């Protein structure tokens, strides 16, 4: 082992020793860092899940073409035929106003309402399943269908998932901002811990300098301390996120069951986990690195 590695090994040992020298203070700092990091981490995890869910739901987009209320039946049939010829259409079904009316009159409470109405209030509909999920292609389909004769309105049933998607993107951005702010907080907390440490270690620093320690030698244990403290804080955050996922998985599963969805709450994936641990260690390192030179020079 060369002396560079030896120096790092010693620095890690010293950093751990400093953590264990005042275990309560270290624990409190680590837990504080962990809780601060857990907030954006858990939010990110939950949002990722909702995003995943919305993708699953919108997997089968539908286009509903509403005909004019007084359009002849042939108009609806023509639209259905036309749609079936169109590229990007998997299936096109005509749903007549009679079908809709009779289906709805079986629904409780609606039968009476329908009986009161003089005419059948429903228009003929053509329900189209596109073969592609691509938003642009679907919009093009909608554009074309809009121009058919006697078409009143074309509705994309996936509209709400698009809105949800936009909302989720916004929420993710908010989480990112919160994450950045808490990252700055982590740097500040580390900076303060290390500054206090340099004060209580003035003797050690002075003696080491006397014996020929370089700036790097003096700094190294502090940098490791900051990184390790950040890393342990990241592990706490990971634990909290995991706990939340575990606690929510059953109720969420039950809820999804009600909607016939096959959905399981997923904990952080490997990439996110590595990102969390890596950045918490890096932020701790930065906090330690910011320690002003004079504090280490004495």
């Amino acid at each position: 082992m060369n002396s560079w590695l030896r120096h790092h090994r010693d620095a890690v040992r010293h950093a751990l020793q400093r953590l264990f020298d005042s275990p309560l203070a270290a624990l409190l700092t680590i837990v504080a860092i962990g809780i601060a990091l857990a907030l954006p981490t858990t939010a990110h995890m939950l949002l990722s899940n909702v995003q995943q869910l919305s993708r699953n739901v919108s997997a089968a987009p539908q286009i509903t073409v509403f005909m004019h209320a007084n359009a002849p039946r042939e108009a609806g049939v023509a639209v259905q035929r036309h749609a079936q010829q169109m590229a990007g259409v998997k299936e096109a079904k005509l749903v007549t106003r009679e079908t809709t009316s009779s289906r709805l009159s079986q629904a409780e409470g609606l039968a009476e309402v329908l009986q009161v109405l003089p005419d059948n209030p429903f228009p003929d509909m053509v329900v189209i399943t596109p073969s592609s999920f691509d938003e642009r292609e679907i919009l093009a389909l909608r554009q074309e269908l809009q121009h058919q004769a006697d078409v009143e309105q074309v509705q994309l049933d996936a509209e709400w998932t698009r809105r949800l998607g936009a909302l989720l993107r916004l929420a993710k951005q908010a989480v990112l901002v919160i994450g950045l702010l808490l990252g700055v907080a982590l740097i500040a907390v580390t900076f303060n811990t290390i500054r206090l440490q340099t004060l209580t270690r003035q003797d050690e620093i002075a003696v080491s300098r006397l014996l020929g320690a370089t700036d790097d030698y003096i700094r190294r244990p502090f940098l490791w301390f900051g990184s390790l403290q950040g890393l342990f804080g990241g592990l706490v955050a990971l634990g909290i996120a995991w706990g939340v996922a575990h606690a929510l998985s059953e109720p969420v599963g039950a809820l999804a069951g009600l909607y016939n969805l096959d959905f399981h709450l997923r904990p952080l994936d490997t990439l996110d986990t590595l990102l969390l641990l890596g950045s918490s260690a890096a932020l701790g390192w930065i906090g330690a690195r910011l320690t002003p030179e004079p504090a280490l020079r004495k």
Partner: protein
Amino acid sequence: MIVFDKVCKKFPEQHLRSGHARAAFALENVSFEIKRGELALLTGHSGAGKSTLMRLIPALERATTGQVRVGDQDVSKLSRRELPYFRRKLGLMLQDQTLLDDRNAFDNVVLPLVIAGLRHKEASQRVHAALERVGLAGCERAFPAELSGGEQQRLQIARAIVSRPAVLIADEPTAHLEASLAAEIAKLFDGFRHAGTTIIVSTHDTSPFDRYATRKLHLDHGHLQ
């Protein structure tokens, strides 16, 4: 090996707490040379400037004017980067206690070797040898607070010699020690000298080192006599 050339050292004006005028210079126009393998003895009254002179050698203080050289190195020209490596070649024993209270004897003595990046096995052999040399074999686990004044002094000597420095600088290494112990340390230093180390020692009481010194320097109010 150690050369002072017209060295002056002036501390920044102190607030005149007592109202007494103080000597303008801690050292004034000090010139001397100590050759390789010599044991130089520095004497002088309290406040004469002995510690100031000693602290100039490892650049703990910088000369106001004049030149301090160790080997062929001009100490005042050392950069921040070079300074640590320069200090590793010196064995230092300052007047004020510089042992670390929260480390045991072994960890205190091994520190210069850890800083130099020595392999653990070799470092620990050297520490044991150094402790044995100063008569502290078996005290590895003791903390400084558990050692007597004389033992602490010897622990500092062990730390100063453990890296086998070419130059040993010892400021009052026998202060507060009884005569027999002081004589023993003087003899120890003579041994280091015979092993090739260049040594500069300061004392109030010259007796223990008198017979071993190859050169005597006497300071009076910052002037070399």
